[in-house]
């Protein structure tokens, strides 16, 4: 077993070797290196063909038409294109957008930008389990609401939103519905023939494809219109100009093909490992799982170890590559905004660790983590004045702290 162990598959994934092989075939003189926009020779035709195969592979995972797939540089660009593109195109119809506080920053910051341009944005607060109350969402819909943007799976907690139900609501009111599916593709079944989603963002590197590549699904029936955010050669039917990165796109296609063929089996295996880890850690005192236990993807376990600060725990767990909601691990020195939106106290947000398991996680690695963690927790709690006070029966919420 190699140390450190990678438990951060929600941040990124290694490229599957099968994907890497396909990508390498698109680079050098003997490979498929042409520009798919070159119409005058074979190099271009071959490249275009490879891109169209990949487009079909992506579409097949989500049961969409390949013509509905627009290549981008990643889910962040897809989110920007979807949100700003729709808002700008439909601005005469209305200037109100609904999203949720636990969205990815690519969605939240795109919405903030639109606010600066004069749009109004409602940021829904999710329930304590991370799920959106559909009645509260419905109550925020106005006559001038043009867009609802809700992520499918949350990157920190793994909570799965009911996008089918939200889609029904949005369609009934003729509001465009965008879903950030960066964390759900290949993990949760997506059927865009039945789900009333108008726009969906995808990333390659979250599902064993390369970084720097993504896609935006843009529904054709009923047709959704976008204002392009990137201007140039009119690629991707004018929605996203720029020479297509053939090797990246081919890699993303292959990654989506593998996901379609293997996801059911893979998710079962990962869920068993996650459950083993979770059940073992839940034996410890004062630990809390963040996010709904049922509506959650297989690979993610977000757990707070009360009375221990997350960054110090990361230091103790240096053989495990995990991430924390602690302020000390963020550039902003603020604890996780996602956990705070769930109503978690700052203490529990500071104390949170996200384990994200994936395709290459083994039972041996999980057992190593299970063996390692309890000792480290005990050691850090021995150092913690809060743990001592808790043991002495002090109610920490009643203590007058000197906040700084």
């Amino acid at each position, binding site marked *: 077993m190699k140390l450190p162990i990678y438990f951060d598959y929600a941040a990124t994934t290694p490229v599957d070797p099968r994907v890497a092989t396909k990508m390498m075939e698109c680079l050098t003189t003997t490979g498929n290196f042409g520009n798919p926009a070159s119409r005058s020779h074979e190099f271009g035709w071959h490249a275009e063909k490879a891109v169209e195969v990949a487009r079909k592979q992506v579409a097949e995972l989500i049961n969409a038409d390949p013509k509905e797939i627009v290549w981008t540089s990643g889910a962040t660009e897809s989110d920007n294109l979807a949100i700003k593109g729709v808002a700008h195109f439909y601005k005469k119809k209305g200037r109100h957008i609904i999203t949720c506080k636990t969205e990815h920053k690519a969605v939240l910051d795109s919405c903030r930008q639109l606010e600066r341009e004069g749009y109004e944005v409602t940021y829904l607060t999710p329930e304590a389990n991370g799920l959106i109350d559909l009645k509260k969402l419905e109550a925020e819909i106005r006559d001038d609401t043009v867009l609802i943007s809700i992520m499918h799976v949350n990157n920190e907690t793994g909570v799965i939103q009911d996008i089918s139900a939200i889609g029904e609501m949005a369609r009934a009111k003729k509001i465009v519905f965008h879903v950030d599916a960066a964390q759900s593709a290949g993990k949760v079944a997506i059927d865009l023939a039945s789900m009333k989603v108008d726009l969906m963002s995808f990333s390659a590197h979250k599902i064993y494809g390369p970084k720097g590549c993504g896609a935006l699904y843009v529904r054709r029936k009923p047709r959704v219109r976008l204002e392009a955010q990137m201007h140039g050669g009119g690629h991707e039917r004018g929605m996203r100009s720029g020479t297509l990165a053939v090797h990246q796109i081919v890699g993303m296609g292959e990654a989506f093909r593998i996901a379609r063929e293997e996801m059911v089996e893979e998710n079962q295996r990962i869920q068993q490992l996650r459950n083993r880890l979770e059940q073992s850690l839940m034996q410890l005192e004062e630990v809390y799982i963040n996010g709904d236990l049922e509506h959650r993807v297989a690979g993610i376990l977000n757990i707070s170890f009360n009375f221990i600060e997350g960054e110090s725990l990361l230091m103790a767990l240096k053989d495990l590559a995990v991430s924390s909601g602690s302020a000390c691990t963020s550039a902003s020195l603020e604890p996780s905004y996602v956990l705070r939106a769930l109503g978690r106290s700052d203490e529990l947000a500071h104390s949170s660790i996200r384990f994200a398991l994936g395709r290459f996680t083994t039972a041996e690695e999980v057992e190593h983590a299970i063996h390692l963690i309890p000792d480290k927790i005990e050691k850090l709690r021995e*150092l913690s004045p809060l743990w001592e006070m808790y043991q002495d029966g002090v109610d920490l919420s009643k203590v007058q702290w000197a906040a700084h």
Partner: protein
Amino acid sequence: MAYSEKVLDHYENPRNVGVLDKNDDSVGTGMVGAPACGDVMRLQIKVNDDGVIEEARFKTYGCGSAIASSSLLTEMVKGKTLDEAGTIKNSDIAEELALPPVKVHCSVLAEDAVKAAIDDYKSKHK
């Protein structure tokens, strides 16, 4: 976060962890920070009849540099008079541990902790 060897050493082998009897007249206790901010530091000093700190104990909830700062602090105050200990500056701790700029507040907290402990001791001996 890439920490210095000294931070890692104090984090891995914290000095003087523990508790002194806070009701003992010779003990001063300083607790600073707040759980919501992600760090709480408790420093205790035991002062002998000559006004010299002969023992120090800490417990800290916080990141690695907060733990290291308080561990180092217990070593620094030992053997100092109250007046000498009162002159410890956060920059002394930050420099000794080579704290990165975003972690300087941990050393500020340590300076606050020693001042609070001295104040507590003095309030018992008015």
